[in-house]
């Protein structure tokens, strides 16, 4: 069964005619061509697919678009403003917090939500907030440092 879905992503309105059971992750990547959002399991077990829904980090692989029509969705593509990277993006680039870069979109999104709630988080709060995002490359240290650097600069 297909249905017309209206989504608001990164401040823009999109429409897609998709099967109702297609996940937000799939619709973003396949129908809206927003491939920045990644997947590592599609079962809620890695955090790679994290997007913000009304400011809250949400697993797009376990979300049905039909349930979040009209809400503000933010993906990694929406982080930069008019071509200027978000401070988190700059900090991740500068400190090499992205190695293969595959977990990075999800990490950045979780980190953005954290800094929006708490502009100067303690290290333990960063760990807590990003502990739902697995990374296999970095050992996490540079990611934590990058979030701290971005917080410092804001």
């Amino acid at each position, binding site marked *: 069964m297909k249905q017309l879905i209206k989504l608001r992503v990164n401040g823009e309105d999109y429409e897609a005619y998709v099967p109702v059971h297609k996940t937000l992750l799939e619709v973003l990547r396949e129908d809206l061509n927003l491939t920045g959002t990644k997947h590592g399991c599609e079962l*809620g077990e890695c*955090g790679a697919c994290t997007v913000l829904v009304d400011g809250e980090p*949400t*697993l797009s692989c*376990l979300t049905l678009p039909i349930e979040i029509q009209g809400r503000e969705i933010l993906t990694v593509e929406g982080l930069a403003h008019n071509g200027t990277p978000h401070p988190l993006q700059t900090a991740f680039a500068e400190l090499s917090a992205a190695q293969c870069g595959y977990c990075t979109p999800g990490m950045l999104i979780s980190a953005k939500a954290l800094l929006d709630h708490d502009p100067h988080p303690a290290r333990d709060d960063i760990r*807590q907030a990003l*502990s739902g995002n697995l990374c296999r490359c970095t050992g996490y240290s540079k990611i934590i440092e990058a979030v701290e650097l971005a917080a410092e600069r804001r």
Partner: protein
Amino acid sequence: MLSERGAEAMIVAGGTDLFPNMKRRQFEPKSLVSLRAIAELQRVTGDADSGLTIGAGVTLAQVSRPPVIAQSYPALARAAGDVSTSQLRNTGTIGGNLCLDTRCNYYNQTYHWRKSIGFCMKKDGDICLVAPGGSRCWAASSSDTAPVMIALGASVRLIGPRGERVIPVDELYRDDGKDHLTKAADEILTEILIPPANGLRSVYLKLRRRGSFDFPILGVAVALRLAGDGACAYAKVVLGAVGSRPVVVPQAESILIGNRITPESVESVAQAAARLAKPMDNTDSVLSYRKKMAHVFTARALKEAAGLP
């Protein structure tokens, strides 16, 4: 709507348990009835003095944060806050957590995997791969909040086509991994009613391998109320993830109530807890270890609640 669609329909709240299960074809509902849009289910009302009412649709994140819960029902805040990851807690609901399907690592697998090893009675087959001789399913109740709710003496309101009823959370469960809820499929859990805190001390300890993501492979919920003279007036110890339903340790009441809590009485209850824990070889870690830990964690939780060193 649910009753119309009958057994083919399922309720979905946050979907964080349902969707992975559907993707692996453990659940194959023809239609879903979503509770997301029902505003009445999203509220927390009341307070520590008069008791709390938590709508079934309140997310785990919302349960873990409010000061009233953190201060008066710390075990609940802890259990909700220990569920998986922050992303998951933003969507997963308390109602869904109480209705969470039982888990088994022969069952939480893809269709191809299950077909290869041979289907089990919980889905598509007729034997149990964990205990092949027997006639029941041993899948583990793996909710973090269920043991806490029982320890707190909470009840749930169920609404279905045949009317409405309120039952203690303890009675929501039965010891059957295949059919662990006493709730009918067309009954909706609408709210959870938690009695007044009234000086209750509660602790929840969770055993898991990693600091996030993981389901409990043992949960220990303890609630105690001490009278002015230090004697114990209320005691509940409930274990999670070591049975197909939360395991209530009745010895907590019989040993502790009416007496001061001592290291010796704590030890007796902990021993009883370890005896009652029936971990099976169907989760992470080794079952003998989980049984031992039922002892250690019960003792630790009781001591923490009682203020013993």
